[in-house]
């Protein structure tokens, strides 16, 4: 049974100084173990075993030139390419985040209404009811690499008319680049815009 007297410091011959020194030594051991050994061993193992993933999953074009990371979205200004979602940081990946607008924030509602109007002007071939909400809203990270498959499909008529590539061919391309749910159940179906546009540009180049 432990002695329940109320002395705050150890009994039984251990002095306060050596008790406190033990705490400092214990803290130092875990600073080294958790703060240096663990992350550096992790880095070493990751770099040796999986260098590509550990390095940020860089994406190369067919010529071998790095054009970004497959995980990080990019801004596309050319209307002949598929467009990404809205990003208040313009897909500048040295930072991340968004405006954190509340659902009733007038700036957010105005921005969304403007985006809808702009979209209508750029895509007159498609009825407004076909525009999925992900295309006119800001992702949380500001770096979302994906759009919904519907969001890619509704852009096909515009891209087709601007590039001259037949719509059927573009639809096939979108289908090819549509990723399913993980393990068939988790998450949402999605299209990686950078990969899709890379394929589109290489198709145009032919």
């Amino acid at each position, binding site marked *: 049974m*432990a002695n329940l007297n*109320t002395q705050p410091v150890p009994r039984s011959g251990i002095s306060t100084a050596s008790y406190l020194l033990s705490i400092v030594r214990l*803290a130092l051991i875990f600073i080294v173990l958790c703060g240096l050994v663990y992350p550096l061993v992790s880095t070493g193992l990751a770099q040796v075993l999986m260098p590509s993933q550990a390095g940020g*999953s860089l994406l190369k074009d067919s010529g071998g030139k790095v054009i970004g990371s497959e995980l990080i979205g990019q801004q596309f200004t050319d209307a002949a390419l598929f467009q990404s979602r809205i990003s208040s940081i313009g897909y500048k*990946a040295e930072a991340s985040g968004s405006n954190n607008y509340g*659902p009733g924030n007038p700036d957010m509602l105005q921005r969304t209404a403007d985006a*809808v109007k702009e979209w209508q002007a750029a895509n007159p071939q498609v009825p407004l009811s076909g525009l999925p909400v992900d295309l006119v809203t*800001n992702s949380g990270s500001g770096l979302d690499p994906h759009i919904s498959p519907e969001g890619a499909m509704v852009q096909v008529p515009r891209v087709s008319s601007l590039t001259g590539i037949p719509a059927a061919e573009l639809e096939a391309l979108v289908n090819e680049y549509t990723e399913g749910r993980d393990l068939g159940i988790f998450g949402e179906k999605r299209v990686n815009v950078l990969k899709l546009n890379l394929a589109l540009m290489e198709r145009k180049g032919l």
Partner: protein
Amino acid sequence: MGIVQIIVVIAILVLLVKPVGTYLYYVFSGETNRSDRVFGGIERGIYKLSGLSRREEMSWKKYALSFLFTNITLVAFGYMVLRLQGSLPLNPNGTGAMEQSLTFNTVISFITNTNLQHYSGETGLSYLSQIVVITMLMFTSAASGFAVAAAFVRGITGRQSLGNFFEDFVKAHTRVFLPAALLMTLVLVALQVPQTLKPTLEVATLEGGTQQIAVGPVASLESIKHLGTNGGGFFGANSAHPFENPSPLTNVIEILAMWTLPASLPYMYGLFARNKRQGWGIFAAMMTLFVLLLSLNYYAEMKGNPQINAMGIDVSQGSMEGKEVRFGAPQSALFTAVTTAATTGSVNNMHDTQTPLGSITPLALMMLNNVFGGKGVGLMNMLMYALLAVFLCGLMVGRTPEFLGRKIEAREMKLVAVAILIHPLIILAPTAAAFLTDLGQGSITNPGYHGLTQVLYEYVSSAANNGSGFEGLADNTVFWNVTTGVVMLLGRYVSIIALLAVAGSLRKKQPVPETIGTFRTDNGLFTGILIGTVLIIGALTFLPVIVLGPIAEHLTLW
């Protein structure tokens, strides 16, 4: 599909509870078992190096002091590194020293397992700070929480002693967090989470522009961030960032990583009490409250924002402002509920952008602070409510209340009252104070009732040691750094110390024999009463402010 994938994740969790809870019991009960052979040698080395080869049983006061002194030592180290990071190695991006009040806030935030972040990781921290301060405190704060929970459980189940803090602290690292984190890091890297010491990359984009891409040792932080229910992200966007959480699969892994250990603690408690039904009863109460609040968020977010729904576009995805396409509303709702239940505080969608009713879920889970809860602390809080429930029932039938065969008397109830009342006090008082001054009000970035919720959320999150935020709030000012710093300290240490005192006093009591008149605490009736107690205390305290914030906002939107 949305509901199916949520049910699958919950089912996996339930299957993990028994094996993980049993393992935790062996870690903390001191019974000899196979894991001694694997870890015993390393642990003996650590004890020897720190001069702790003799480890005596501790009284509750000594246990609490050892916990405090260890935390103070770690925090002092963290403070120094952050203030000096500009001139220390492993700083390829040339990050300068952190400002004083922000450093104060940051080290408290991480030692209290809160991980409220008033800085942005990409620009505010060197790689050295990310690993040796942030990652290190994520381990040690989680291990500290686990240790005190183990001591509390030993006390109320009448074990011989509360144990030895240092031994619990070491074992939590060597047998739980370090091996699990290393394994999870490798899994995350395989699923494309970066782990590198290279500086920010620069690439030429498809359209011919340039893009700077921040990278770093992300995976090793990401794994302990969830296993330790810490929640502080490597990047500003936290688990919404594609490098922290690249796919729905990593999302599910992160959810299970932060959920499994807190959810297994009730089972471990059942083994300590030598009555597994006790443990399952507590678990059932937690899961019931969890599913109720998760459903609210799922329903509200799938329904979307009425003002956007009126624009005539296709809104079948629900509310997508602040959400990622790969997660959609279902994986976002589940993450939100788990991260605030388990007091992790990582986010895979921006809580500030959620619909008003949806945002009640994270607020309520943090206000209750006992639905699974953070490393160890959630179980302690739920057992505190269990003591209160037994006490209320005792008052109703006019019997001295008993819990696990021990009488609950005035001293225990006073301490429980302190632990229960401190939570609303440190939330509501500073929220009111923030509105009295321009220092607080000036930081609000969303007009109307939503602004009230922004301020409220910041203090709820600090008090519950959660760390998520309504991140629109411009909170990196001396006012917010200092007030939330103090709230985090009180939120962590007052209740832990009060509950350790309860454990110390219950342990000393003579067990009373069970009779026909004993109120049983291991059946469905008790689970129901426990849920009722949690809801009544929680609702009575926080309902008015919920009405002023999210509910008023909902009424203006719809």
